[in-house]
């Protein structure tokens, strides 16, 4: 059995509101995190990710369910006794203390020797590049510096679990990529079990071993970045994860001699049945309608069955984004090379069977991913 550090079992969060119906912010959440694993809680605002983090930290009471950390049940303990370190989205640095004292605060209360404190503060501040501002006060440093100080204050402690709420939201973009790399290397090296909340999937992808995608209080899928990209569990995950998001269209299905998806006023994706493994054909079965999806990177340009008008063609230095007007929506294709085509022109495009995702039109659950069943 894997070494489980944190487990949430059937956790609910219900906010009672005076005179209004209660809000079910987190619904029956089950999640197990292994020791040393880095987990991202990803979702848009109001999806329940921050409530989840705050329940683990102990700032929100759990409405139902258990939380177990390092073999101790913690959901009824006060925050200070749970053994978690947290970096807050609003930084929450203590204004009367210098950055150095902010970072050292928890270490001093843990009665570490002055020399140890000194060493650990120096080490962590080098990592997040705040050595120069250690003796300044929080009010005199920029938002990005405050965020780095807040991150340092959480990481400097020894804890069973690190909770980071939007740890990089305010960072200077030039610094973000490097800091992500260093943070990841630190977390991996020390085997620090950590959960961070983010709405930015680039950050989730870059840092996390596994990503928990949440929406409307429900955990939609909990898997690695590769799994989310290649095998999204449902239409929500498919269109939420990926930059740019997956192109999806509702299509009429023909599953016989040929497997054919026909989108009204849009593309047709047509394959000989022999190209498609039997289990996939069986999974698609006799349904008449389905939702088909293709990742922008998988759209093949310059040939194929379908033709569309180009709405825009944008070269971003290292990649090209092409938008086409298809069935009243935008179909987006991405290429790592410049595309020689202008807005207003027509272009041919297609997608391979291996790149086609099929979802049930009613339940929105995945049916097949390329040549594999869901």
């Amino acid at each position, binding site marked *: 059995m894997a070494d489980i550090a944190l487990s949430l079992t059937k956790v609910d969060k219900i906010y009672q509101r005076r005179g209004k119906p209660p809000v079910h912010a987190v619904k029956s959440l089950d999640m197990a995190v292994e020791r040393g694993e880095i987990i991202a809680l990803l979702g848009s605002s109001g999806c329940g990710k921050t409530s989840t983090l705050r329940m683990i930290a102990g700032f929100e009471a759990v409405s139902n369910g258990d939380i177990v950390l390092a073999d101790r049940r913690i959901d009824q303990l006060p925050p200070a006794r749970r053994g978690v370190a947290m970096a807050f989205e609003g930084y929450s640095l203590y204004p009367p203390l210098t950055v150095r004292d902010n970072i050292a605060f928890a270490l001093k209360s843990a009665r570490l020797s002055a020399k140890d404190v000194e060493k650990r503060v120096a080490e962590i501040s080098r990592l997040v590049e705040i050595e120069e501002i250690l003796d300044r006060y929080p009010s005199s440093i920029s938002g990005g510096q405050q965020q780095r100080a807040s991150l340092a204050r959480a990481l400097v402690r020894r804890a069973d679990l690190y909770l980071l709420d939007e740890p990089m939201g305010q960072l200077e973009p030039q610094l973000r*990529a490097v800091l992500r790399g*260093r943070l990841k290397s630190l977390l991996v090296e020390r085997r620090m079990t950590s959960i961070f909340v983010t709405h930015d999937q680039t950050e989730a992808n870059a840092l996390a071993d596994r990503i928990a995608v949440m929406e409307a209080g429900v955990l939609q899928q909990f898997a690695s970045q590769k799994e989310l990209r290649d095998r999204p569990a449902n239409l929500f995950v498919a269109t939420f994860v990926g930059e740019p998001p997956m192109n999806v269209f509702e299509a009429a299905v023909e599953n016989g001699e040929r497997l054919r998806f026909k989108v009204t006023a849009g593309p047709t994706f047509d394959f000989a049945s022999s190209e498609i493994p039997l289990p996939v054909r069986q999974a698609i079965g006799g349904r008449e309608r389905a939702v088909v999806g293709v990742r922008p990177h998988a759209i093949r340009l310059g040939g194929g069955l379908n033709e569309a008008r180009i709405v825009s063609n944008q070269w971003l230095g290292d990649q090209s984004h092409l938008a086409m007007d298809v069935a009243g929506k935008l179909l987006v294709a991405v290429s790592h090379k410049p595309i020689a085509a202008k*807005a207003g022109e027509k272009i041919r495009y297609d997608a391979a069977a291996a790149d086609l995702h099929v979802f049930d039109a009613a339940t929105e659950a995945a049916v097949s991913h390329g040549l594999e069943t869901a």
Partner: protein
Amino acid sequence: MAALELRSVSKAFKASKVLDSVSLAAEEGEIVCVFGPSGSGKTVLLRLIAGVEQADEGSIMLEGRDVTDTAPEARGVGMAFQNFALFPHMSAFDNVASALTARRASPEAIRGKVEKIARLLKIGHVLEHAPRELSNGQKQRTALARALVADPKILLLDDPLRNVDAKLRYEMRLELPALLRTSGSTVLYVTQDYKEAMALGDRIAVLLDGGVAQVAKPADIYREPATLGVARLFGDPAINLVPVQPLASPSGPKIGIGGASLSLPASYAHAIGKRCMLGLRPESLAVEAQPSQESFDVDLVAATPLNEKTLLLLRTADGRELLASEPNADEAPRRHGPAFARFDANAVLLFDAANGRRIAPQSA
């Protein structure tokens, strides 16, 4: 005649000079993106043109007319603010219509125009709502509609996509160019996202430290940034910069990175002996398991996968951090530890360390 022209415009707040003799011109119907880091004076520039701030020096010309001392209501520009700045006590309809009521149009004409622009921006169904009842995306579209409805000759957009969620921002980035073209306005578009600037601008004006560092077409700025400062702003992750001093050798100019001696193209011969900064775009840096002719030793510290590419954080033998990016392959994940990096010599950028200017390669 330029539709919009700034002539040596300066603006200071108290002691700090925000804009220092900025000159910029935009042709009719052109989309110029004003791009720079926060605090570089982009928004101030827009406010000077709108007339809600006064320039200390210089003049502002709109279609050949000097408007430097003209009141904002008489300049005939449209503007969308970063924080939307909707009138909270008016419905979305009245918000949009406010740009027309001042021009004494008839109520039917106003209704017609508001409904037309609302349809275009997909807010027709929420026109009777108060701003607080609108989603962020709808607020942003209402603010855009208000700026566009009176067909202004000059349209000023202050980071209009900043406060909407990523998905909507992405969609708008694809849709906006067509929308702005149909309006026919000359557009000044402020953003601090270089991708947005590259996607939307016919040209980009890079604002740095109160001055215009470069004005050029998007692809040209990325490929040939005028200065070190500009190079650092374009690219995600940012360009790697390594101090080097090219030395002469029989096979052409050489530079040293982490103890290895590597070749530069012969076209950089004129940089020999100069103290330089070598700019390496992460996508032009390849990381390999085996050494090769022009490779140098690195330690692969962390591999962070992004959506369609993976970022590799490398440490050179002398402790310098470099970022490399490579398209995602389905092979096994990268192993941390010793590896070998190699750069595409034709894709390097070289900057003069003394003044930060790019050293252009010279054909022999």
